[in-house]
Every structure is written in structure tokens, then in C-alpha cells.
């Protein structure tokens, strides 16, 4: 690694060092959207949750749907990047950083959603002063907090050498890079510590990530409500989360590749590998969904059946079948054939999966609440302007997160790319050789039984 000299990958720093009008325009527009969302949301703060479309049987709506959705997307990052690092997949190098950024940005957005949903947000801290460990909501708070901490550190630590590089190049704002570089000089000892920290974190972060969406599913599964009270909800949610996470990662990669001209780094092969992973997750998602709905249907408990038919043939049929088409039918067709598994094809499949996974969250939250056991009439739910505005605000915050990150930090890990170029070819071939069978024993020493 040579921080001072001109090197091959200066184009990765171009967005930081030559930021122009694009950044200002994009960030102002996004801030405008976010500001607008908050202005509309102020009605809810002043008047109460009445301004939403929520009602008595359907007490949870968009806020909770988006909470589950955004937290699901967050599994893109840390989990995938940790698994790829752990399995020493060399093709991970240009991908991990973006994946980790998705996680941190989306977790901040998703984790905030339950607060939007509170009737008395100013009493939020009661969770700490009067918290009851028995409540799945408290498990959630603990798990998401742990995940946010771990993934922020996991994003930051591998960024240190890149920040130091920016510091040494004198990039502005200097104080930011000097502060964040944390005295990095690139000594062998520092490298050893960094590697060690990353390897501890990547092992640590996987169980936390799995726990996060498991516990979110427990919010629903721990109640007795039809359609929620299911033992496979934990793994079902985790699979869905990773599924939507990979789709979001692919979307982000394709968009950023276009904007920042990263074609040299994000090559066809990266999309090919990741989209195979997406295909596998799509099949796995279908397997879980099929098991879940078949069990409900076959047992045909009346209250379960009300929820079932509400989704399959009732008012939620467009959303239910839309979900199946977006998550399974079209992605599997696109991703199965090499002819359609092109970058535009993958882009379409990823967008559909993200939409489909949002629909899945909607299909889980609303129909069960709309069909309570005792109610003879079914409930309905139409989200209000406030809820739509906060949804738009959430998406704008996601994009803004990327715009701001790309303005100040490299989207692809410069040092890891360099490391890959310099060291890993030798390392990988050495590793490959270690997989091969040992050389045959010399012919003189024939194996003899017993002894």
C-alpha cells in the first residue's frame, strides 16, 4: 500500500475530491423531500395518531410495515459482507463497503419507525426506566441497538486505511479525515490489529444480524393472533430479510456503478455471483411461504382461514399475488437463464424483489389485524397522507445517506482492492493448492495392515 504516490485506483476518490454541483443538487432535493415529510408529520405530533389511517382492529399499519421492511433490507449489508469475508470469497472486495453502508443507513431509518408509531413518543425512555424483559418489543430494542452498534463499528474499522489515505492526500475537510483516521500509519502492527478487529467483528455480527430479524418476527409470532402465531416466523423473516437485502444491494450497486463509473470494479462476474445468491434466496423464500400457507390452509382453523382467504381471494389478493409474482415468478424466470441474467435483467429482478418484500411485510401485518377472532365484520386500513409522506421521507433518507457517504468516503474499499491485487492472487493459489490431494506416497513404502 502506497498512500502518497499516485496509484491505479484514484478514480475511486474522484467523487470525493471533485465533488460538484451534482452533490449539492441531489442533497438539497432530498433534504427538501425529507423536510416536507416532517412538515406533514408535524400534524401527527400536534393532533395525535388520529391523522393516520389506523383504527381499532388494524392498530398497526405503514409504520410497522416499513419498520420490518427497512430492518429487513439492513441484512444486506453486514450479514452478507461478513459471510463473504468469513468464507474468504475474493470477489467480495468491491462489494462489502456498499453493503455495510446500506445496513447502517437503513437501520437508522428502520429503527426510528417504531418511534413514529408511538402514541406518546416523549415517553419512549420508559422502555429503559420501566422496561419489562418479557415483552418481545424490548428484545427488539436490545437486538436492534446491538446490531446498529456492531454494524457501525464494522463499517468504520475497515474504512480507517482509506480515511488515512484521504488525510494524506490533503483532502478537505482535513479535520474530518485527521480525526477519523485515528492515527493510522499503515504499520504492520496496525494492520495486524485491524485484521484482528475485523475478523472478530465479522464473527460477532452474524449472530446479532440473525437475532435481529428473528426477534422482529417474534413481535408477531409471540401473540395468539391467527396468521402470526407460527413457529417458522423466525427463520422465515430472516430468509426474507437476507433476500430483500441482496436485492437492495444489487440495486444500489447497479445505480452507483452507473453514476460513479465503477465499471472497472463492479464487473459482470460480481453481478453474476450475487444474482445467483438472489435466485437461491428466492427459491428459499418460496419454500418458506409455501410451508407457512399450506400449514394454515390444511389445518383450516376458522380464524386462520379468515386471514388466509382475506389474502388469497379477498381484499388483499392483489397484494398477495403481487408479492408472489414479484418475489418468485419473475425473478426466478429472469435469473435462471443466462440470456436474461444481464445487468438490466438483474436490475429489474432486484427492484421487483424489493417491492415484493415490502408487500410481504404488508401482507403479514395488516390482514391478521383486520381479521380478529371475535370480530364479525372485518377491519380495513387505508394509509393516510402522513403515512405515505413518512414512507417517501424514509426512502429519501436512504438515498441521502448514500449521497452524503459518497461525497466524503470511497464507496469501494481502496485498500482492500489494492490488497487483493497485491497479495491475494498468491494467497489464493496457495490456498487452492492446500485443497489438492497430498502427493502420492513413495512407491517403496507399500501400506501394510496391522503392525
Amino acid at each position: 500500500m502506497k498512500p502518497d504516490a499516485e496509484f491505479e485506483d484514484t478514480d475511486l476518490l474522484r467523487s470525493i475530491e471533485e465533488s460538484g454541483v451534482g452533490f449539492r443538487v441531489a442533497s438539497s432535493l432530498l433534504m427538501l423531500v425529507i423536510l416536507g415529510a416532517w412538515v406533514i408529520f408535524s400534524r401527527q405530533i400536534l393532533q395525535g395518531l388520529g391523522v393516520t389511517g389506523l383504527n381499532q382492529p388494524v392498530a398497526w399499519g405503514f409504520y410497522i410495515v416499513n419498520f420490518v421492511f427497512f430492518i429487513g433490507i439492513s441484512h444486506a449489508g453486514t450479514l452478507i459482507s461478513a459471510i463473504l469475508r468469513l468464507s474468504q470469497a475474493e470477489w467480495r472486495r468491491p462489494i462489502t463497503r456498499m453493503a455495510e453502508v446500506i445496513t447502517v443507513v437503513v437501520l437508522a431509518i428502520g429503527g426510528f419507525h417504531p418511534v413514529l408509531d408511538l402514541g406518546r413518543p416523549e415517553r419512549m425512555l420508559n422502555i429503559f426506566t420501566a422496561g419489562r424483559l418479557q415483552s418481545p418489543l424490548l428484545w427488539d430494542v436490545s437486538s436492534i441497538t446491538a446490531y446498529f452498534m456492531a454494524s457501525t463499528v464494522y463499517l468504520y474499522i475497515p474504512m480507517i486505511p482509506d480515511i488515512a489515505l484521504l488525510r494524506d492526500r490533503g483532502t478537505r475537510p482535513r479535520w474530518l479525515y485527521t480525526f477519523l483516521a485515528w492515527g493510522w500509519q499503515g504499520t504492520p502492527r496496525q494492520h495486524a490489529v485491524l485484521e484482528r478487529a475485523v475478523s472478530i467483528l465479522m464473527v460477532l455480527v452474524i449472530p446479532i444480524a440473525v437475532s435481529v430479524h428473528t426477534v422482529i418476527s417474534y413481535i408477531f409470532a409471540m401473540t395468539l393472533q391467527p396468521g402470526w402465531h407460527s413457529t417458522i416466523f423466525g427463520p422465515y423473516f430472516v430468509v426474507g430479510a437476507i433476500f430483500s437485502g441482496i436485492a437492495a444491494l444489487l440495486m444500489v450497486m447497479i445505480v452507483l456503478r452507473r453514476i460513479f463509473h465503477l465499471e472497472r470494479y463492479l464487473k459482470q462476474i460480481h453481478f453474476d455471483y450475487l444474482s445467483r445468491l438472489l435466485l437461491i434466496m428466492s427459491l428459499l423464500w418460496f419454500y418458506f411461504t409455501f410451508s407457512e400457507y399450506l400449514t394454515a390452509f390444511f389445518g383450516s382453523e376458522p380464524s386462520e382461514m379468515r386471514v388466509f382467504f382475506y389474502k388469497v381471494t379477498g381484499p388483499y389478493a392483489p397484494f398477495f399475488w403481487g408479492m408472489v409474482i414479484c418475489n418468485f415468478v419473475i425473478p426466478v424466470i429472469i435469473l435462471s437463464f443466462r440470456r436474461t441474467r444481464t445487468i438490466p435483467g438483474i436490475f429489474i429482478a432486484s427492484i421487483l424483489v424489493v417491492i415484493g418484500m415490502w408487500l410481504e411485510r404488508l401482507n403479514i401485518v395488516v390482514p391478521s389485524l383486520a381479521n380478529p377472532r371475535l370480530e364479525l365484520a372485518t377491519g380495513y386500513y387505508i394509509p393516510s397522507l402522513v403515512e405515505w409522506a413518512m414512507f417517501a421521507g424514509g426512502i429519501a433518507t436512504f438515498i441521502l445517506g448514500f449521497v452524503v457517504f459518497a461525497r466524503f468516503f470511497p464507496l469501494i474499499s481502496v485498500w482492500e482492492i489494492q490488497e487483493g491485487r497485491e497479495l491475494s492472487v498468491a494467497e489464493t493459489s496457495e490456498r487452492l493448492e492446500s485443497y489438492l490431494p497430498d502427493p502420492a506416497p513413495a512407491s517403496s513404502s507399500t501400506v501394510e495392515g496391522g503392525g
Partner: protein
Amino acid sequence: MTRWGMVIDLERCTGCGACMAACHQENNLAAVGEEECARDRGFYWLRLLRQVSGSGSNLTVRYLPQLCVQCDDPPCVKVCPVHATYLGEEGIVGQIYSRCIGCRYCMAACPYNAKVFNWYAPDRPGELERGVNPDVSLRPKGVVEKCTFCHHRIVKAREEARIAGRELQDGDVIPACAESCPAQAIEFGDLEDPDSRVSRLAHSSRAFQLLHDLGTAPKVYYLAEMERGRDEA
């Protein structure tokens, strides 16, 4: 220890709705108005579930006054993150309005949909403001509330018994809904006391509990309608 319970005789119930109105008045429930009711935000601690069967001249309408069944194993208490809803010593499921954060998890978890939420700041237009019952605390916007079995009446009855220098007797406590029922379909009392009217009625062969197979152990019992030779359901 007392274990408060209720028995509602569906044979006697005429579906007049007096219990609903009395409960509303007694417990200072907000008047949310027609528009909000149309949006499924009707405000009640006790409501009439209506079942319509048949058609034309064969039309049958049945009513079931439904309130919080005060489970012995309440699903709402299990999920509350801040201990704002709890099972009291005498078996009444309470709600601490000043602690509730308004997450509505208890509403989502309650199989009986017995809880209501203050979507807006509660409004008591006109005369209603002056008719507020001083024994029952007012709720702010953004919190969940529910039937308390007229807990304030229990406290009052116990005080009166203590002043009179006697034990609390069966029939001393009458919740607003039972008091207002013209058909005397609602009985209230101590389920622990084998001689109380509620505990005798709760052991009747007509007695059943709502969704009792969920294992929530409700303390509100219903007495089924008698057969009348007409088509069921």
C-alpha cells in the same frame, strides 16, 4: 383473596345497549363522533357484538355484550414493554395511563379486541364536560385504555363497608353496566366465594367463556341462550 368476575345471561339480554351507554358515561369515555366511528374508531370499553343470521322474515339478530374479559393469563400484559398494563391482585387487568407509551402492542395481542386507543385528544363536547365522573381519571391522547370492572366502585364499596364495620358482601359492588341493565342480565361478584351469585352462575351448565380454548382464563362468563326450537346460527 377476592377474584372479581362477571356473568352475563344472554337469555336475558335484550340488546338494548344501556350497558354501553352507562359504561361510557361512568368511565368518562371520550365522545369521538360519527365520523370517527365510521372510520372504525368507535370508543367503548363495552360494546355489543351483533350477529345477524337468516334473511327476510326469518332474520335473527343476536347480541353479545362484550367487555374486557379480565384474563387470568392476559396476552396483553405479556407483551407490554413498559409495564403499563398489569394483572392486579384481585384479577383485574389494569392500565397505567401515565406510563403507557402508546405502542398498541397490547391491542394487537388481545384476542378479544377489548382495548381502545385515544387517536386524538379526548373530546367531551357541551354538557358532557360537566358530566365527568370525578372518581375516574381522564386519559390523555395517545394512550390505550380498557374496562376496569368499575374498579373505583369496588374501592368505594370497600370503604363504605369498612365505615359500617362489616365485611364486603356479595352484591355490594355493582358496576355501571350491571346497574343499568333493565333485564338484570349482568351479575358481578367474587368468583372465589362459592356462595356468591356469580360463582354459582359461572358453574351453571349454560356457562361458557369467550375463546376459552386459547387458555387466557377469562373471568367474564356468559350464559348461553336456551334452545327455542329455531335454527341455530
